[in-house]
């Protein structure tokens, strides 16, 4: 399942159809929220990791589990608690008495989709254990490196309001997440739909059909890699990231990884929208989710409404977008 030579080539229309089908399946479990769900899928297709930050009870965990089911990936969940140790995530060597030697027992990291629930409740030591896994796709335990399955994606959740007993993710760790999305509260009708579906289902858990499998996800990701980005659009992404660095409220702006993330996420979003080329509107659609968490606002502005999202909004409303007559 982790070999990559079984990847079949998909045309962009086939890939877009599969992506739509995945979103449809996820939409059966999670009511509404098309934009954030589309963003999460776009990030997975762009080989990225996602941080879902919102209040408890808004369907973060459900969305992550449903994505794993619909994408046909191995799913594992790690509840991040204050006493969680790196070895609890990566796995560790355990003495096997039958063969009189140490054998490696794999931790929850060895999955296609890892749900890191309440990631900010665990100390930095354990958070850092995720870094290598997320960036390199491998874990090193006692000097020995173990490759993780491909695809490997982390969907982490965090609660933005409770600060007691939490360890906010450091900037270096936040930068590893391609997107940070919030789900927000459902509308009245959507909320009733949640209730009605639960009553109709007559059981708590909800399961959806697998649309594809790990090989299929790799093929989708390969299709995203073939999506064209016009030079003007690429330069627009760079200009946006650059503008966050010069904004008056910003202490540290988005890194070059931010502009790269912008292009990659926009490609994923373009595929979800059924195109094999990126338009500036794709960049605008993903900009908030890609850039806001990479921006550190000046500490003296803590009492004002200044935030990463507001900076991104301001930047989007000031950086010149590619015009009609700049074609090659």
């Amino acid at each position: 399942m982790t070999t990559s030579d079984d990847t079949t080539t998909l045309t962009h229309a086939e890939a877009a159809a599969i992506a739509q089908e995945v979103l449809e399946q996820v939409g059966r479990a999670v009511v509404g929220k098309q934009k954030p769900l589309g963003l999460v899928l776009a990030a997975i297709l762009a080989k990225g990791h996602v941080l879902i930050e919102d209040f408890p009870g808004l369907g973060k965990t459900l969305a992550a589990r449903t994505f794993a089911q619909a994408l046909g990936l191995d799913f594992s969940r790690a509840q991040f608690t204050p006493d969680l140790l790196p070895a609890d995530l990566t796995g560790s060597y355990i003495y096997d008495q039958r063969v009189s030697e140490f054998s490696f027992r794999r931790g929850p990291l060895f999955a296609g989709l890892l749900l890191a629930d309440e990631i900010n409740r665990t100390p930095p030591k354990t958070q850092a254990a995720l870094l290598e896994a997320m960036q390199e796709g491998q874990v090193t335990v006692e000097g020995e490196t173990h490759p993780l399955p491909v695809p490997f994606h982390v969907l982490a959740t965090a609660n933005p309001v409770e600060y007691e007993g939490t360890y906010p993710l450091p900037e270096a760790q936040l930068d590893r997440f391609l997107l940070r999305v919030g789900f927000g509260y459902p509308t009245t009708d959507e909320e009733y739909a949640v209730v009605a579906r639960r009553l109709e289902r007559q059981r708590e858990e909800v399961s959806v059909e697998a649309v594809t499998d790990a090989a299929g996800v790799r093929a989708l990701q390969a299709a995203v890699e073939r999506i064209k980005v016009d030079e003007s659009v690429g330069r627009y992404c760079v200009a946006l990231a650059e503008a966050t660095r010069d904004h008056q409220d910003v202490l540290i702006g988005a890194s070059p990884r931010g502009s790269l993330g912008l292009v990659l996420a926009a490609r994923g979003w373009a595929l979800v929208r059924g195109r094999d080329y990126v338009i500036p509107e794709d960049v605008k659609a993903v900009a908030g989710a890609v850039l806001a968490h990479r921006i550190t606002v000046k500490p003296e502005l803590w009492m004002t409404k200044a935030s990463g999202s507001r900076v991104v909004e301001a930047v989007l409303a000031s950086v010149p977008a590619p015009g009609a007559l700049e074609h090659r």
Partner: protein
Amino acid sequence: MDQGAASARAQAWRAVAATLGACLVVTLVGWAALIGPSQVFTGPGPTPSQETTTTSEAPIDEVEEKDRDDVAAREYGPTTTVVANLVGGAIQVLTLAGMLLVAYLAVRRGLTAWRLRRRYDAPVDADFETLEGGAPERVRQAIADDTDEQLRLLLDGEPRNAIVACWHRFELQAVDAGLPRHPWETSSEFALRMLERAEVDSTAVASLLELYREARFSEHALDEAHRERAATALRAIQGQVQVRQRTVGREESTPPRGRR
């Protein structure tokens, strides 16, 4: 938007007034503090101890007398005066430092409030400008005036460039109608805003928009079939604009019923 700016300005002024008020109160308190303790420490001192030494009418218990003498000696001793002066000086210096700090903070807060006030002002002007120009009739008139030229551009030259040039023509028409494109707006966002203003049916617009995006940002090969589809969509848009112009004109020329 106007109201928002006005309330922001009121808020800014309120913040400045509040800090000035706080500054005044602190100054008064500081002044009182400077006057009060300094007199206590540097003045002639309390009188009761002097009385005890001069009064002989009421003989007081020996021990108590001795105690009072001790107290008096301590109060008027040279060391006590030095300590008192030192403490008084320290209080004065601290109060002055506190007042300077408060003044500094007040000025800084005022500057921040001023900066925020100016920041809220900018969008008001921009919105005002947008509302001024680009009335629906003017936009429709601009599109109608440019019908032939836009169609000629679309039917001329390589399909990809022709479609892009045709779409760009909307921008020029909008400038004529007093509805300029914001630099941060993408061409599609802007043209959509403009065509919405002209109340054109969205199906034809969506079809032309899709072709423009494909021509501008993809590497797909575009041929005469694409040009034909674009021309159909453009003719539909132009036709709708003319129909809309006529109906609006008729509505304006016939006086509304039921009114005297």
